[in-house]
């Protein structure tokens, strides 16, 4: 009796010399041609054909299929002829192993072929990935067993996830992951841990896609994952994070909505109050309080619009008298501020955005004065305006010691601060820049800095 484990190359030296040699040397075109030729001539090989078993045919089909893959994978170009060979012999391979005695076969080969089939789909027919991959996985599952098919698919999901160079890797990961879940569903608890891991992966993918509902969808995946694997600490933490983020978003949304009405109410109430107060002869102090409330509401509305990234609302204003003078009033007892010229200087700006920017710049100087313990009487800040028909330039200079050279190039970046990490949020100058840019202008450090201070320049166009 023939030994069960005698393989084709042992039975027939021709197979080794004609086919296997070129295959092991990665000469796949030769191994493909010769293996097909070998197969075709086998019926005439009276010397050997009686010894040929089912598992030898499996070997031949495997060799043809793997050779076809080798050619396509090496050249990276689609060849319909080779493609047809691959799937033709892949089918025959599957058909044969269905009935063959598995103990005489290499499971590794079956795994390899399924992996190859998925690989070819991804590289050459990605649009058919969902449909075809499902089909091949289920064929392999029927021909061998679900464990083999699912382990190949699982590995493929994570391989794709790691294929950082491929621009569509995330899309393929998602498709394969969905097939995995769909297929593994039928096998109960045995695959719960794997399914949970895949759901976690899908949750991450969905989350980082950043679409409108991606957080909600990510949360759904995590929740499903926790149903299957309730002890997954990673998933629990992730769930909490996403929920927190959603809560914050919802709170901001509600805040926006509710303050819309409140702010509207506040503004109209103030109008009523003004009308009544102006109708009576009120003292200067009452009027001053009223003005302060008015300014605060105005600024609150401006900050709110800025945070919402609202496009600027342009209006003609007298920059010096309507904006700068009232603004610096609140700083006067903490430094000496000089404005030049003090004449009327009308320009079309978003009043709140310019105010926000200037306020941040002055605040920046004030903090520098305080940090460096500069005496009140020695603190100077100059605001100089230059106006041409098309440009308005505002120069803001202080004598607060100047900028650290290392910070100069990053001064407008978020969270960069000379005040030390975490002490302040470091959004001030970034916001100042942002507000000016929203109006189509620019804000920069002056090319020539004073010896003992800092100069910023705002440029606005008409």
């Amino acid at each position, binding site marked *: 009796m023939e030994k069960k484990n005698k393989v084709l190359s042992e039975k027939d030296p021709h197979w080794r010399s004609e086919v296997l040699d070129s295959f092991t040397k990665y000469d796949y075109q030769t191994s493909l041609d010769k293996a097909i030729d070998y197969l075709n001539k086998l019926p005439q090989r009276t010397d050997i054909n009686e010894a040929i078993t089912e598992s030898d045919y499996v070997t031949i089909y495997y060799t043809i299929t793997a050779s076809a893959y080798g050619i396509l994978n090496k050249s990276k170009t689609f060849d319909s002829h080779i493609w047809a060979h691959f799937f033709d012999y892949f089918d025959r391979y599957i058909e044969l192993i269905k009935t063959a005695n598995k103990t005489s076969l290499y499971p590794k080969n079956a795994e390899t072929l399924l992996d190859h089939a998925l690989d070819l789909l991804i590289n050459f027919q990605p649009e058919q990935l969902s449909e075809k991959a499902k089909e091949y996985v289920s064929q392999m599952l029927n021909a061998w067993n679900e464990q083999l098919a699912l382990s190949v698919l699982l590995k493929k999901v994570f391989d794709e996830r790691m294929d950082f160079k491929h621009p569509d890797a995330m899309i393929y990961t998602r498709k394969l992951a969905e097939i995995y879940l769909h297929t593994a569903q039928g096998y109960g608890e045995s695959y719960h841990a794997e399914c949970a891991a895949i759901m976690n992966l899908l949750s991450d993918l969905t989350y980082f896609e950043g679409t409108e509902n991606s957080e909600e969808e990510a949360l759904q995946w995590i929740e499903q994952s926790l149903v299957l694997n309730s002890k997954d600490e990673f998933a629990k933490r992730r769930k909490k994070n996403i929920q927190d983020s959603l809560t914050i978003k919802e709170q901001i949304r509600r805040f926006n909505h509710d303050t819309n009405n409140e702010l509207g109410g506040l503004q*109209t109430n103030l109008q009523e109050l003004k009308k009544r107060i102006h109708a009576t002869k009120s003292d200067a102090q009452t009027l001053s309080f009223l003005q302060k409330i008015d300014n605060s509401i105005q600024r609150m509305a401006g900050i709110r619009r800025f945070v919402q990234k609202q*496009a600027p609302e342009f209006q003609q*204003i007298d920059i010096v008298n309507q904006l700068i003078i009232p603004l610096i009033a609140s700083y006067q007892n903490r430094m000496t501020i000089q404005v030049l010229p003090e004449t009327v200087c009308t320009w079309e700006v978003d009043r709140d955005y310019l105010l926000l920017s200037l306020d941040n710049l002055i605040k920046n100087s004030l903090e520098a004065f305080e940090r460096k313990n500069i005496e009140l009487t020695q603190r100077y800040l100059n605001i100089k305006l230059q106006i041409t028909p098309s440009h308005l330039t505002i120069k803001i200079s202080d004598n607060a010691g100047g900028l650290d050279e290392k910070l100069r190039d990053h001064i407008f970046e978020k969270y960069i601060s000379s005040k030390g990490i975490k002490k302040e949020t470091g959004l001030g100058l970034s916001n100042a820049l942002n507000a000016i840019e929203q109006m189509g202008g620019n804000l920069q450090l002056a090319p020539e800095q004073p010896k003992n201070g800092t100069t910023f320049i705002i440029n606005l166009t008409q």
Partner: protein
Amino acid sequence: MSTPLSILFMDDEPSNDIIANARERLAEQGFDVDFVSTMSSAIEAYYEKFYDVFILDIDMSHLPDDQEGDGVKVLKRFVSLHNQTKVILFSGAGTVQHWFSAANAHCFGYIAKDQQDGELDSIHLLIEKIKQAAKSTTSVRANTSTAPTHALLITDDKSLATQAISQIQSTLGENWTNEIISTDAWSKNPPDSSQYGIITCLQAKFSTRARVKQQLQAILANSPAPQTIIACDGLDTERNSILYIANQHPFRMVDLQHPQWQQSFADALSAAVNWYGKQEIFTADADTLSRIHITLPEDVQSAGHDDLSETDMESLYTDYESAVKENQDNKDESL
């Protein structure tokens, strides 16, 4: 002495400060203001009295008698009920879609409750809008003797221009010519708009600078002859410029952020041809009317008002139907 302007003011939060203040200040202006907080009382009021202006909020979703309603639907409904009444939306809750839909349903004005113009608050803006509505006459213009065949496209964006031209050509057909002009060239030397049947203006964003506002105002000044279609990005951050345009009464506004904006643009073009030189009148939405028809009598009774009999309601309904029939050429426009 002329009769005071009659206003129906509907808002479901009558105790809100802004609403209370608005009512007071409208009354101070000498307007004859009736306030309602439900849809059925609005219908009832409408049935009994003519209103020059109807003010309503977008956020009508929690009206007990009209679960499906929001301001835009209500707006369309009232435009269909009575074309002479000017509808002004006064809202704190509108979304991008609302702004575009409201313009396309021909609201006379849209004021956001937190909107301000310098020192002027939203109620001031509302009052200005009401005064403007009082002056405006509904002009249902007769068709010009010859059918228009010239369209004008105003844009600075080459890619938008290419896409728009392809829609203009395929929608308007060979009989129409289309001229393209940049916004700059337009404002330096605005062509006589009477030679055009349709003016389209496409730009991602319109600034709120005075010169841009003036341009837009001039472009829209003669609508509905020619019918003017404005397309821009529907973004939350552009609320002020979008509302500014909506308040200038374009024939249609198209949201360039919408994936199928070309289709909306084409629809707007064909609607503009059908409606050339005329005000668009919406046909009554029978489904909505029948819904109100069913809910109304109960509400009226529970509110302790006079009964509105079935026959009354039927005649009201027949009125709509005959109004619809009179306007056989009025196409049923969906948003």
